[in-house]
C-alpha cells in the first residue's frame, strides 16, 4: 500500500520536473533577442549584447553543472575556484560558527531550563537579542573583530544560537517530573541526572532546535559572504552575477539548495535516532 503510494509520488515528482524544465527550455528558446542596433544603454549594461543574454535554458545550466562538478576543486586564482572549494569555505564557516553556538547554547539552555530563576533573569536579554537580523551585527563585528573571516563566523554564531538555546531550555524544563523522580529515588547525583535522564528526555526537543539552527545558519552564510566577499558560495553567486554569468548563478543557487538539504537530512537522521515514544 504505502509502497505503491511512494512509487506514485515519485512518478508524479518526475512528471512535474520534466514539465517544468520543458516549459523553461521552451520559454528561453522563444525569447526574442533585441537587435544590436536598437540596444539602449541599459540593455547593454545588463548584458543584452553578450551571448548570454536572457535567462539561460536548463540545458545550458545542466551543461554548466557537468563542467563544474567534473572538476569541483580546481583552484586557478582568486576568481576561479571550483564550486567544491567555495562550498567547503562556506561549510567551514557555518560549522565553526555553529559549533561555537552549540558550545554556549546547550549548557546555558540546560541551566535556564533547570532554573526558573535563571530563565526569568535571562529572558529579557533573549527577547531583545533574538529578533535582530544576524546581518545587522556585521558592521559591529567587522569593527570590533577587524577580520572579515571571523566576522562571518560570528554572524553564523549569533544567528544559530537562539533556536538551540530556547529549545534546549524548553526541552529541559518540560522533562516529566516522574522521570526526575526516578533519578531521585535512585540517588543519582546532579551530573548523572543531567546526562542519564534529562538529556535523553529532552534530546528530541534539543535536536529540533539544532536542526532549525543549522537551516538558518545556511541561509545566513550566503548573505554574509555576499557582504564580506573573498570566498564561499555566497561570494561565488555574487561574483558570477557581476560577471553576468547567469548560468553559473542558477547552478550555484541549485547547489546551495542541495547542500542545505543534505545538512537538514543529517540532522533529521540524528533527530530520528534520539526520538522515543512514550
Amino acid at each position, binding site marked *: 500500500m504505502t509502497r505503491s503510494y511512494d512509487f506514485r509520488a515519485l512518478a508524479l515528482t518526475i512528471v512535474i520536473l520534466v514539465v517544468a524544465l520543458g516549459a523553461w527550455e521552451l520559454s528561453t528558446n522563444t525569447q526574442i533577442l533585441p537587435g544590436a542596433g536598437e540596444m539602449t544603454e541599459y540593455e547593454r549594461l545588463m548584458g543584452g549584447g553578450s551571448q548570454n543574454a536572457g535567462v539561460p535554458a536548463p540545458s545550458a545550466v545542466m551543461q554548466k553543472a557537468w563542467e563544474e562538478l567534473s572538476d569541483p576543486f580546481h583552484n586557478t586564482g582568486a576568481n576561479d575556484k571550483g564550486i567544491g572549494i567555495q562550498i567547503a569555505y562556506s561549510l567551514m564557516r557555518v560549522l565553526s560558527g555553529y559549533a561555537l553556538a552549540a558550545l554556549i547554547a546547550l549548557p546555558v539552555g540546560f541551566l535556564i531550563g533547570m532554573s526558573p530563576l535563571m530563565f526569568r533573569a535571562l529572558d529579557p536579554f533573549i527577547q531583545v537579542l533574538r529578533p535582530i537580523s544576524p546581518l545587522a551585527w556585521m558592521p559591529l563585528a567587522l569593527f570590533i573583530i577587524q577580520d572579515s573571516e571571523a566576522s562571518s563566523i560570528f554572524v553564523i554564531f549569533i544567528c544559530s544560537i537562539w533556536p538551540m538555546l530556547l529549545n534546549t531550555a524548553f526541552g529541559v524544563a518540560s522533562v516529566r517530573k516522574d522521570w526526575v523522580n526516578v533519578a*531521585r*529515588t535512585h540517588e543519582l547525583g546532579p551530573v548523572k541526572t543531567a546526562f542519564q535522564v534529562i538529556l535523553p528526555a529532552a534530546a528530541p526537543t534539543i535536536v529540533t532546535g539544532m536542526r532549525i539552527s543549522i537551516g538558518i545558519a545556511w541561509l545566513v552564510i550566503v548573505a554574509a559572504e555576499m557582504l564580506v566577499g573573498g570566498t564561499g558560495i555566497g561570494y561565488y553567486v555574487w561574483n558570477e552575477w557581476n560577471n553576468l554569468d547567469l548560468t553559473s548563478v542558477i547552478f550555484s543557487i541549485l547547489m546551495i539548495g542541495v547542500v542545505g538539504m543534505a545538512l537538514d537530512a543529517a540532522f533529521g537522521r540524528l533527530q530520528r535516532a534520539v526520538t522515543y515514544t512514550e
Partner: protein
Amino acid sequence: MTQPFLEIDGLAKRFPGSKGEQLTVFENVNFDIQKGEFVCIIGHSGCGKSTIMNVLAGLDEPTEGVVTMDGKEVSGPSLDRGVVFQNYSLLPWLTALKNVMFGVKARFPTWSKEKVEEHSYAYLRMVGLTNGAEHRKPSQLSGGMRQRVSIARAFATQPKLLLLDEPFGALDALTRGTIQDELLKIWQDSGQTVFMITHDVDEAILLADRILLMSNGPFAEVAESVVIDIPRPRKRAEMIHHPAYYKIRNHLVDFLSRRSGEIAASPREQSGGRRQPLTVRPGADDEKPTPDAERVRPHLVSLAG
C-alpha cells in the same frame, strides 16, 4: 518493646489554600510497620495516600511529623526505599532490560557490566519477561508488561522498603491476578517490607498482613489498622471460602462506604501525644479487639484454621 522498622509520627500535610487559609489534606497520621510486613492502605480518592507515600519515599516533605526507618529519620529519597509509581515511570528511551539495569547500576556502582546485566536478567526472569520482551522499549510493551518491568526494577535494587502506588490500577483483571501472584512470591522469597496503596478491597485482603484504613479528606487520618487473619499461602479461589474472608471484607466495605465519611464529619478530640490507629481483627475467632502490644506478623501465627 523493640523499635518498629518504620515509624510514622504525627504526619500532617497542608497546602496553602485560597484566601490565605490552609488546606489540611491529612493530619495526626501515626502508624508503624514491622520488618517483613506487607501493609496496604485504602482510602477514598484525594484523602492523601499518594502524598503519604511520597513522604515515605522522601520525594515530598510533610508539613509536620517525622518518618523514621531503621532508627534513622527519612530526609530525601534513598535507594533503601524502592518506589513503583502508579504510571510505571519507566524511562521510555531505554529497553526493559536497560531500565532494570539503570536501577541496578545506581544501587551497585562497583559492579561490572556483566554482573549488572546478569542480576537484572534474574529479576526480569522472575517477572516472566525474558523471551525477547526485555529488548523492547516500554512503548512496545503492554501495560502489564511495563508494570512487571517496573516491579523488577524496584526489586532488583533490593530496597529495605518497597513502596507501591496503585501498581495494578490500570491492568485488566487477568493480568492483575498474575502479577499479584508474582508480587507475593517475590515478597515471600525476599523478606522485604512492602507498603502498597490500592483501591481494590479484594486485592488488599489477598496481599496484606494488615490494611490501614484512611478516613475521607480534608483532615483525613489513618483510622484503623485491620489485621488480615487468613493463613498464607493464600489462593484467590480458596480464600473466598475462608470464614474470615467475608467478615474482613464486610468490615472494609462498611468502612469505605459509611464510616470513612462519618469519621471525617465527627468533631476531633484534641488528644495530645501519639495516637495509633485502632487495631481490629474482624477475621479472628473471638471478636475481642487485641491490645496493641500483641501485634505480630499474622501469617506467622495463623490464628484461624
